[in-house]
């Protein structure tokens, strides 16, 4: 039978089942279930748990564990995620696979502790310095928190890149039935890049400082080529009733669930609405959005912020359709009736 658990706990189980070696974190609401759960479970399993002295230290502990090829993660919420950007930029530059989780809350600044989606830009545009990308996954239910956490390590290791799960306080805090249906990973592929001590091989060095003439330029070209491959291979989205839709809602995470209810309501009202939900925020499903964009269709981007992903939707649509936005920030939660009203206005 499915187990009733919080999204945050489902996430922990997914990571642990995927063979997480080490968790490093720092308390911040609304992700506190993660370090609390890990502090018990990881220790019981004989694995590593450390409550770091800061988000900065926790993220750098992840860097240290992951540079040796071990599966490591950290989690935080928006203000803490700003502090983790330093290590994220380094890990992207050093090509270190790891999982970083943001259970978003309202901002800017200390904001509040309600769920929000206002860190989209920070997550997908490279919140730290330098020209890098993270694979950004956006689960919208507890089951997906479990599954994306589980899958994220393979993805991170396949491309030697940090992966971010961009969740929010609502998905993290709510309980839902979850089926823990993934096999436990106990064996790990040999990593021919990891630092393991130079026994019977040449020493390795993993770094992001490349001062020799042309070497950083070369490294950036390599990174961009890698990002190109990720963009080609790893786009994930959910398409719901978009085939005949005159109104296509684009939404991710918690907003996509509410939007789906609104689509159903709209259909009951005789309006041909559909939902295109990016499950990967980077790489972004631009191609499918571009294909769906026609003069007779309109897009409505629904977000719990004041308009961030809508910019990527507009880029993908590229003027071929009308693109409207509906959102609330600062912890405000949109409901399906509000979305329905907006849809009705759009079809008029």
């Amino acid at each position, binding site marked *: 039978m499915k187990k009733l658990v919080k999204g945050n706990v489902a996430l922990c189980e997914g990571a642990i089942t995927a063979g997480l*070696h080490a968790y490093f974190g720092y308390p911040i609401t609304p992700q506190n279930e993660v370090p609390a759960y890990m502090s018990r479970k990881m220790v019981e399993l004989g694995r*590593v748990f450390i409550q770091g002295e800061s988000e*900065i*230290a926790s993220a750098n502990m992840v860097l240290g*564990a992951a540079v040796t090829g071990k599966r490591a993660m950290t989690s935080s919420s928006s203000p803490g995620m700003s502090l983790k950007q330093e290590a994220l930029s380094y890990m992207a530059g050093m090509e270190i696979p790891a999982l970083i989780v943001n259970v978003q809350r309202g901002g800017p600044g200390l904001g509040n502790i309600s769920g929000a989606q206002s860190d989209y830009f920070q997550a997908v545009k490279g919140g730290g310095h330098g020209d890098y990308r993270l694979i950004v996954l956006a689960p919208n239910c507890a089951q997906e928190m479990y599954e994306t956490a589980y899958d994220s390590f393979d993805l991170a290791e396949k491309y030697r890149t940090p992966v971010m799960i961009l969740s929010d306080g609502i998905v993290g805090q709510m309980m839902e039935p979850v089926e823990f249906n993934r096999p436990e990973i106990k064996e790990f592929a040999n990593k021919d890049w990891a630092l393991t001590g130079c026994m019977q091989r040449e020493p390795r*060095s993993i770094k992001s400082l490349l001062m020799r003439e042309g070497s950083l330029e070369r490294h950036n070209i390599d990174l961009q080529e890698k990002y190109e491959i990720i963009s080609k291979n790893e786009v994930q989205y959910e398409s719901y009733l978009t085939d005949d839709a005159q109104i296509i809602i684009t939404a991710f995470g918690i907003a996509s669930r509410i939007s789906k209810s609104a689509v159903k309501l709209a259909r009951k009202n005789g309006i041909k609405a559909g939902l295109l939900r990016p499950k990967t925020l980077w790489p972004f499903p631009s191609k499918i959005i571009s294909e769906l964009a026609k003069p007779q269709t309109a897009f409505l981007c629904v977000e719990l912020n004041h308009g961030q992903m809508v910019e990527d939707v507009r880029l993908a649509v590229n003027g071929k359709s009308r693109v409207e936005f509906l959102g609330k920030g600062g912890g405000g939660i949109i409901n399906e009736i509000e979305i329905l009203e907006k849809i009705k206005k759009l079809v008029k």
Partner: protein
Amino acid sequence: MKKILSRPESLKDNQMHYCPGCGHGIIHRLVAEAIDELGVREKTIAVAPVGCAVFAYDYFNFDTTEAPHGRPPAVATGIKRTNPDKFVFTYQGDGDISAIGMSETIHAANRGENITIIFVNNANYGMTGGQMAPTTLIGQVTETTPFGRDPKREGYPIHLCELLSSLTATTYLERVSIYNPKNIINAKRAIKKAFQYQIEGKGFSLIEVISNCPVDWGMTPLDSIKWVEEKFIEEFKLGLIKDKTEQI
């Protein structure tokens, strides 16, 4: 003919970028010799800082990585906790360890991480052109204290070993220098002892090496050595600060 001295296996055959007269070359060699002698080269994972020693990985002949500025103790924590069988040390300067990375330093020490920190104190930020560091002496002129460090404005030099000695978890803290052969031999002894402690699982050790920075101090190498002897170690007294294993 008998070879009596050769490059340690733990050092690569690369020419160092350090300025003429700089102490880093000597300290690198002491670290490399100690690792060779303890036979842990193939188990070593070292963490380079941001600062002059950022290029340590070009010289050390074992696995190395690099941490963001000040974060080596956190990175080393992550490495050591997931690989307790490996030999892990960080190599850091004064700005890295006691300014931007003070939090990481204190908390790694307070957790009693079984790692070793080699802390090179040269009283300024060398790589960026000689700005004031937390260890800059009172009155010392640097790029950002053109009138000399004034305690009213910039506070006093931080004595990291003494600060860490108050933490229950720290095992071994010693301040050494390399301004003459006698001190170099002593520094080697301390570094090796700290490494040995890690191998024995005794916990957190930090060796502070008082070094020189002739170029940024605006001195000849010889004058810089004289300054270490006459001024620097007057403020930063050499010697054992703490050895928990001896107290027990």
